[in-house]
């Protein structure tokens, strides 16, 4: 095992130790001070509830619904952000005509328009997908525009000096340069996608993890709420990890300090 791997392994052990201590303190405090599980459930109760939700099969339909909303919303929003961002960056007329409206739309809190989408697209998956897509759209849009503006001027001159056409410059220089910021936008959008789907489900849904949280909360099943929150943060982490993996793979030339979180 290399020195670096050894070190990151000992770092992992340290963070696990911290987590174990925190959970033990939490568990101990709840029992010691006899805190009601409606206020703050013990970690063991949360784990037990999570296990029950999974083994009873109750969680699966909700998990599937939310995952579909997150993934299709993310893909839709990212593709729209890429296409419109590229058009704004590359077609000057488009920037003048469309960009001001998009900025105005961006300043709107998306949560506030969520009820409208429920009216327009119904209680089914569609409304949640649209809300998620809208939430993902803006970070990608902004990162695409910033990405296209980030092309190095010296490299532009270099391409011109070696006789590159506009298209060649676009394909060989501008797009690869923009990728760095675009992936940063994807990373933000991936995390926002989870929020978008849950917010949509809070506002109106018949299925999904957000709907489940509302229902369990209504039934004062606080350990159940905690259990779903664990699932949600696992989804968020997985989305983020996926994006980091993709970024490391596709923009390999960026050397950033990424000591592995999980070796």
């Amino acid at each position, binding site marked *: 095992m290399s020195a670096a791997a050894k070190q990151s392994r000992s770092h992992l052990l340290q963070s696990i130790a911290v987590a174990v201590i925190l959970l033990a303190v939490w568990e101990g405090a709840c029992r010691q001070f006899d805190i009601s599980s409606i206020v703050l459930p013990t970690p063991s109760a949360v784990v037990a509830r999570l296990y029950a939700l999974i083994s009873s099969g109750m969680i699966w339909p909700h998990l599937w619904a939310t995952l579909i909303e997150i993934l299709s919303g993310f893909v839709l929003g990212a593709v729209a952000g890429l296409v419109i961002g590229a058009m704004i960056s590359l077609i000057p007329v488009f920037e003048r005509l469309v960009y001001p409206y998009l900025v105005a739309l961006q300043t709107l809190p998306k949560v506030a328009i969520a009820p409208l989408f429920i009216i327009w697209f119904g209680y089914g998956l569609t409304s949640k997908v649209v809300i998620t897509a809208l939430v993902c759209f803006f970070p990608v849009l902004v990162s695409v525009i910033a990405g296209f503006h980030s092309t*190095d001027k*010296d*490299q532009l*001159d*270099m*391409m*011109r*000096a*070696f*006789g*590159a*056409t506009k298209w*060649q410059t676009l394909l*060989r*220089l501008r797009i*690869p340069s923009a990728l760095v910021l675009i992936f940063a936008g994807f990373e933000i959008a991936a995390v926002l996608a989870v929020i978008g789907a849950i917010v949509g489900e809070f506002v109106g849904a018949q299925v999904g993890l957000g709907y489940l949280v509302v229902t369990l909360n209504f039934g004062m099943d606080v350990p159940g709420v905690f259990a779903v929150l664990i699932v949600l943060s696992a989804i968020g982490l997985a989305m983020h990890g996926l994006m980091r993996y993709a970024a490391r793979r596709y*923009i*390999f*030339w960026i*050397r950033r300090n990424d000591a592995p979180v999980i070796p």
Partner: protein
Amino acid sequence: MIALKAQPAGDAYGVPVPSAGATKPAMIHIAGLEKSFKTRSGETVNALTNVNLDIRENEFISVVGPSGCGKTTLLRILAGLEIASSGVIQCDGAQIAGPRPDVGVVFQQATLLPWNTVLANVLLPAHLANDKSEARVKRAEGLLAFMGLKDFAQKYPFELSGGMQQRVSICRALMREPRILLMDEPFGALDAMTREAMNMELMRVWSEERKTVIFITHSIPEAVLLGDRVVVMSPRPGRISEIINVDVGRPRSLQTMATPRFGEICDHIRTIFGAQSLTATSL
């Protein structure tokens, strides 16, 4: 062969060399060249005023001058990246109006594409000309081998040192067998030892593939070591203050730098700079 190359008959240094020999017209002809920029605050900066220079085919021209005297501007106009405000700047009798395929440029930064391998970077000019032939790959590999980078063809630029990256960018500039090579302080970021090694390599390239070179540098010994002539520029406004004939035989080596004649020429250039800074302070 190189040693036999006729040196232009002994002009005393310090006397501007008259433009190219009467027999052959100059390859590059610059007369009354002016370039001014509008700054953002609306003022006009005269980057170059009244620049006159004739460059013969296969001549190695070094350009020295203090920072901001317009060296890069001159090179960018020669590369067709910038358009002169007025004056004549011709190559083979035609005004330079844009980048030309027979010109290779080495920029101050290596400006390699980080997502491409070293080989792909060297091949870029060929790819841009839609030439994907095997012969081009052979040439790129040959150039890399010549520059001592044989084993790095499949590496990425970030896996190379600064000096290696600059060598790759020289290979790239040589890819399409340019007749004219423009170099803007290509070794500026290198340490003295690597720099001397690079100077030797550049002379080796130049002796293998004869071409017209315009080489900008901050280093007076480097300019004298490499150049047939040294163009000395002065700032505010940017102009040529003197063109010095380097009457030191070839092939030259690092030992050449120890000869008295070499030292005299360097001293002379330093005197010009000294006089410049005196007038600057007295202003």
